[in-house]
């Protein structure tokens, strides 16, 4: 069988488009998940970025070429795609996956195959912690997305303004899926909510395979908190719809990755009404002068607004190009990684900088005012309305009638 299959593979390799060597394009591999809403924007956004760069004459005359792969949300598939990208298609850098499992699985391979790799969507703190712990082996890996602890901090900061100061809330219950990515998130919630003025009454972790959320909501309600602080990603549609159907009289507030996607309203059949979620980008919020033009360009080209990972992937292609330019066209992994570490680029997400090697979160995005900052959005009548920070807000919080807030 081996003898039968190999020629077929080799033939295929020849059939793959090989750009003329003379133009020396910069090839960037993009590994993503087209079937998942969160992953579907990655490749198109990267493609858009490449076209923009090429329209302006490329990187010092060299065009950027995107080679896209689908990993079907499987880590072993992604590893194979990574090997193909590096060894077969000879890409100079890889942008790969919003799934933490896959991002972590690719981390050792970035070192083994000496290729700069950026995740446009995996939030786990473990990624930069691994880089900090073993910088020598993980220095080619960058986290192009804020960490979950950064997410939690942002939720706490906004909650202080929106929930405590504005609505006079005092207590909360943390509701998160039982997953490794929520461990740092929950730990940060527990430590940052009390200073923000919200006392966590309980902390409910549930299996991410849960389909019936009634017991969870009933347990939470029995504790009589003012708000539910969420940490969900694998689930989203189901708790939201059941929250609405059961008319749970408490607002949901926090990280809910699926809720950020523009299609969430449709998927929940409007059940999302009133849900407040943290996001790093939104189509109509000018986080930087580039945000809205990108979102509009994306919609013109693909017919819908990008998901959150679209913004990060778009930026990633741009700052890779920027790094190649600063490295005077050198694309070997060491030079490129060194150049990326010095990134200071204004992207659609805000000002992009990576934390330096000495930091416990090395190669993670720098987060905070003036950098990547994010927003709090609320679903209102099919639209995502930005409610925080005040400088970017384009609406006020509103809740469905069954939700009782103090003020």
């Amino acid at each position, binding site marked *: 069988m081996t003898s039968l299959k190999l020629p077929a593979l080799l033939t295929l390799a020849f059939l793959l488009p090989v750009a003329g060597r003379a133009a020396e394009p910069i090839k960037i591999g993009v590994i993503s998940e087209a079937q998942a809403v969160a992953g579907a924007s990655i490749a198109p956004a990267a493609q858009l970025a490449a076209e923009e760069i090429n329209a302006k004459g490329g990187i010092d005359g060299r065009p950027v070429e995107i080679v896209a792969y689908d990993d079907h949300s499987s880590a072993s598939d992604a590893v194979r795609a990574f090997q193909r990208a590096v060894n077969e298609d000879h890409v100079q850098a890889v942008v790969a996956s919003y799934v933490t499992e896959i991002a972590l699985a690719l981390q050792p391979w970035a070192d083994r195959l000496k290729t700069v790799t950026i995740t446009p969507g995996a939030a786990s703190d473990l990624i930069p912690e691994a880089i900090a712990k073993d910088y020598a082996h993980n220095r080619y890996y960058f986290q192009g997305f804020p960490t979950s602890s950064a997410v939690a901090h942002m939720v706490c900061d906004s909650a202080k303004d929106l929930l405590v100061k504005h609505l006079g809330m005092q207590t909360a219950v943390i509701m998160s899926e039982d997953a490794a990515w929520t461990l740092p998130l929950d730990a940060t919630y527990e430590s940052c909510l009390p200073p923000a003025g919200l006392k966590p009454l309980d902390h409910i*972790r549930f299996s991410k395979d849960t*389909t019936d959320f009634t017991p969870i909501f009933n347990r939470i309600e029995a504790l009589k908190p003012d708000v539910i602080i969420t940490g969900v990603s694998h689930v989203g549609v*189901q708790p939201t*719809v059941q929250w609405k159907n059961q*008319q749970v009289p408490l607002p949901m507030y926090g990280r809910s990755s*699926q809720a950020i996607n523009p299609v969430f309203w449709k*998927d929940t059949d409007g059940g999302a009404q009133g849900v407040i979620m943290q996001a790093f980008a939104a189509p109509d919020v000018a986080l930087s002068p580039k945000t809205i033009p990108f979102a509009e360009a994306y919609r013109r080209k693909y017919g819908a607004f990008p998901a959150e990972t679209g913004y990060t992937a778009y930026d990633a292609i741009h700052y890779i190009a920027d790094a190649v330019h600063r490295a005077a066209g050198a694309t070997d992994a060491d030079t490129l990684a060194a150049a990326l570490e010095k990134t200071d680029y204004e992207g659609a997400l805000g000002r992009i900088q990576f934390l330096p090697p000495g930091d416990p979160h090395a190669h993670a995005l720098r987060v905070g005012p003036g950098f990547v900052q994010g927003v709090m959005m609320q679903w209102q009548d099919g639209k995502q309305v930005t409610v925080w920070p005040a400088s970017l807000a384009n609406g006020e919080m509103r809740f469905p009638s069954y939700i009782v807030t103090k003020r």
Partner: protein
Amino acid sequence: MLVLQILIDGFAIGALYALGATGFTLIFGVSGVLNLSHGALMVAAAAAAWAAHTEGAMGSLASAAIGLTVGVALALATFRLVVRPIQRSPAIRAEEREIFILTATLLWGILIQEAIASLFTSNAKTVPPLIGGVTLLFGVRIPRNEILTAILCWAVIGILWLWVNRTRTGKAVLAASMNSRGVILLGIDLSRIHVAVWAVYGLLAGVAGVLLGMFLGVSSYSVGPLTASAFSIVVLGGLGSVYGSIMAAYAVGYLETMTAYLVSPAYRFIPALLLLVTVMYVRPHGLLGRR
């Protein structure tokens, strides 16, 4: 209060589980097929209903009807394209049919799952509920649709019971599940019975899928867990025994709900799985297993 919540919540979940498992056990009883594309059929029906509503702008009832149609069509396709070719294949020996049908229906389920993911993404979907709002029952707030779901589940199970016990085709189906040769001896066309059973099965899976989509929501990732849960419930109850399946559905439904309320939602599935293992050791053919 807590007891009531557990009772009510477990009742609805149990009813859904029971409905999902009834079709699975019916098909096993009559044609000896363990259809591992079961979950895919349910999700496909729900996804079709969702798409009819959101993309086709249809009403709740019309989109539910679309979901049921898809369920029936896919069940018949499963029978015609996957199960029957294997049953009739001269190259597959009788004692190996089981592994082939298991493998082929698994693959068929993956095909459907991938098709759903490609068409509608892997995001979870919820079918618009037939009725909205909540109602207070003994001081417990329950969505009206949850009550309707439980009622509908039981109504469908009741109709199935009537069909099997009161109609000619239904009785022939029941007879075929006990003794297919006896049915042939009476000149009753077994292949037509099989088609009828698969159609009814598709309807059951469709109803279960659409109701599940309304009550809890489904995604292409639900395919595997739904199949596994129907499989477990049916085996727990004793293969081919509808009463056993209903009993087992409630045992699992209440065990899960109680765990979620009293222990932790994180451990929701574990006691039911342990129960299953225990039952397999103590009563190897399930609670109401025949042999």
